């Protein structure tokens, strides 16, 4: 078997990283609240969520960002590191939504051995695609060869 290791040299502008699909469960949102310390009732209490204009509780934006970071670190393994990640939260994620995290290389710096990626998270709901995270940007850095 040839060795399948991610190398900086194999990247090119337009390179698409493997996407990561996850279903967001109610129980998972509760675990995330306890793990992160973000106990905002918007993510736990349906009555509160309705009172502020949502049909039910929504997932923490940071949980969606965490899933996006997982997509990146899964891809990188221990051969490169996530150096920066910037996102805007643009649409809510509801209980039982399937979210898909994806990314594409935007530019490369061979001297610094870093790559800048466009990253985003989408969700398909009733035939339309929404973007809980769109126009995100990640910077990843590779160790010396």
């Amino acid at each position: 078997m040839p060795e399948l290791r991610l190398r900086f040299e194999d990247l090119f502008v337009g390179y698409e990283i493997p996407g990561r699909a996850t279903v967001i469960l109610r129980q998972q949102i509760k675990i995330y609240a306890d793990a992160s310390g973000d106990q905002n009732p918007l993510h736990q209490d349906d009555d509160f969520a309705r009172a502020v204009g949502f049909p039910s509780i929504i997932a923490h934006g940071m949980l969606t960002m965490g899933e996006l970071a997982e997509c990146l670190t899964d891809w990188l393994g221990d051969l490169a590191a996530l150096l920066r990640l910037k996102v805007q939260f643009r649409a809510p994620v509801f209980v039982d939504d399937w979210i898909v995290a994806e990314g594409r290389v935007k530019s490369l710096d061979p001297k610094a051995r870093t790559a800048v990626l466009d990253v985003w998270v989408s969700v398909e709901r009733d035939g339309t695609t929404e973007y809980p995270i769109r126009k995100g940007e990640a910077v990843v850095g590779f160790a010396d060869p």
Partner: protein
Amino acid sequence: MNVALEGKVYPDTTFTVEPERVKLFRAAIGEQREIVPPTFATAAEFAVLPLIVGDPELGLDFTRVVHAEQEYEWRRPFRMGEALTVRSRIASIRQKAGNGFLTIHTELLDPEGELVVLARATMIERGA
């Protein structure tokens, strides 16, 4: 929202990268490996964020607040068990089209004073 609070620095807090907390965080985001996920930084940030968002001097209406933007810069991976200093300040407060924009910068520093993570969070207080 009280715009005069721009620049306010909040007291340092200590946050420990506890194995049990990391395990719970990994379960929440579906990380299978025995690592500290980079976004565990959020847990350190939340050692202080509720104090800022709930600061009576700031006068934020919590029911109208949404998290709009988040950015992390990692200088190195977390080390299991390490104690970090969490230092937050209000970097900016802006009013635009009836909405308030609050940006909080948080530094996570190791005992040597070296920066481990820089976090920037922007909250929007929607117009009433």
